[in-house]
């Protein structure tokens, strides 16, 4: 069985969303391959200890996509199946936005523009301690509206954090519309390059491209932070969710759940 298989992760997300009757499916689907490749081939962690001091850091700054991370943490074994099955239930741990009290979740996010700075602090700590830890910080394109993101970007360059890889999930949507309609971001890669990052743009659903980008980001110890601009599709994997922003808000019913699962299984 392939570890962190994207289709299986999407199925877990659908199960969670259906069980908990929750929203934010589209923004979880857009980052599935980005997380799958990271956990499968790059992120160093101790499966027996989510807080191992020598771990790499996976910072989900776009906390709205947290179901995709829960699905990965479930595969590692940090989140048991029954907890996944009771998602959104009263008295459970797994909330609708990233929460640092959950094993494997590094930052409390959802109020956007927070996680990247915390990740920068962890990357800085690794630099000061001369460890070879890498911090991967996944931010949304909508999240780039937040001023604190650019404060963090300036700081990361100033402090030469070449152990920081910022992954930008460019799915082109934010809560109330496309990013172009709300606050146009222009050329995101050029913006990060102007902030003195090493940059690359990839297809955020192409696992081999993602794999190369992560390997390259970790290997280049040149004093510059890295930005991987990942072009993605919001709702990727289920045709009726793709590029339809209502899946930021819509809850599954029996029919849409069955139809989405059938499509993932290749039955549709």
């Amino acid at each position, binding site marked *: 069985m392939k570890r962190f298989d994207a289709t299986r992760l999407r199925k877990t997300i659908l199960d969670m969303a259906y069980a908990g009757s929750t929203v934010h499916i589209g923004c979880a689907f857009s980052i599935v391959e980005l997380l799958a490749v990271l956990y499968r081939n790059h992120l160093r962690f101790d499966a027996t200890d989510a807080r191992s001091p020598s771990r790499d850091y996976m910072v989900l700054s776009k906390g709205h996509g947290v179901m995709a991370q829960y699905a990965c943490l479930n595969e590692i074994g940090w989140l048991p199946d029954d907890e996944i099955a009771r998602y959104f239930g009263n008295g459970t741990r797994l909330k609708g936005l990233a929460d640092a009290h959950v094993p494997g979740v590094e930052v409390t996010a959802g109020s956007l523009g927070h996680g990247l700075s915390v990740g920068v*602090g962890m990357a800085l700590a690794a630099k000061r301690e001369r460890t070879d830890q890498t911090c991967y910080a996944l931010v949304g394109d909508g999240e780039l509206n937040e*001023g604190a993101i650019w404060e963090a970007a300036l*700081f990361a360059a100033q402090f030469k954090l070449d152990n920081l890889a910022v992954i930008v999930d460019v799915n082109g949507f934010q809560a109330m519309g496309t990013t172009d309609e709300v606050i146009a971001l222009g050329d995101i890669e050029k913006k990060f390059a102007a902030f003195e990052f090493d940059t690359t743009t990839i297809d955020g659903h192409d696992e081999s491209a993602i794999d190369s980008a992560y390997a390259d980001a970790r290997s280049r110890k040149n004093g510059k932070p890295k930005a991987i601009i990942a072009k993605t599709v919001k709702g990727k994997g289920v045709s009726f969710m793709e590029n339809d922003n209502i899946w930021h808000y819509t809850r599954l019913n029996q029919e849409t759940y069955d139809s989405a699962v059938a499509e993932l299984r290749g039955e549709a």
Partner: protein
Amino acid sequence: MRDAFSNALVAAAQKDPKVLLLTGDHGYALFDPFRKACPDQYMNCGIAEQNMVGVAAGLAKAGFRPVVYGLAAFVPIRVLEQIKIDVCYEQLPVTFIGDGAGVVYAQLGTSHQSTEDIAALRAVPHVSIYSPGDRFELTSCFEQIMESSGPAYLRMGKADLGDVHAGPLANWTNGDLIPVTMSNAPYLFVATGSGVKLAQKVAAAIGDVDIVSVPRIKPFPDESLLRLARGREAIVTFEEHSVYGGLGGAVAETLVGRYVGTFLRIGVPDQFSTLCGNYPFLMESHGLGSADVESRIRKMLRENVEYQ
């Protein structure tokens, strides 16, 4: 008081290499001794306070002991959400220093003044709040913060008013109110920060007053206050902070239902500093000149007698 802060900070950093000082491009001259003694533990994070607090949280998660310095108008006010979510929710050992609290930056105006910082932070879980009245209290507060393992806010206000106590505090480890004068008088003045000096001045004019200082506002030492409140005819709080939600609020919350005498809060009323002026001018504009305060207290005491 600022020398005491600098000394305490240098001592802490020399004792523990995990102590890091983060400043938001503030502290000119103040940090010269620190930069000389511990250059590798000093970081100017630029004029970007939100990122600075997030970075401090990340450093703390990885085992460091950040001390985040800014003017109180920015730390904690501008970065309240970062303090709440990035630091307090995880109970990280990050210390926040809010300098120039109150109306210290008098002529610079409202942007650099802070009379709401205690109130804002009191409602955030897990953060301790310290407000020393002189250099001896500051040293004890800082030591207590460094011995704790959670978030803390140290409020530094008007720093050149002189000493309250005769020397270093002995064994102040429980956060209790600290007696300044104590003779079982009918009136009790409860003061924090620069309010202690104001309370002393007013007490000298009114007489029959005991004074206690409150260097730690959260967790508030309820039992210590209730013991001292017993049998008093009147209690007055003093602070260079809004009368809402600061020391006066904390004392009122503790006393309500458990104290029957007269009670008055002296602090900044619900208003900004609208005019330019020096520190004494602004204090007077907020009704915090000693003559004003004295007459308000005398009026309260008179009315109280009449009502009896």
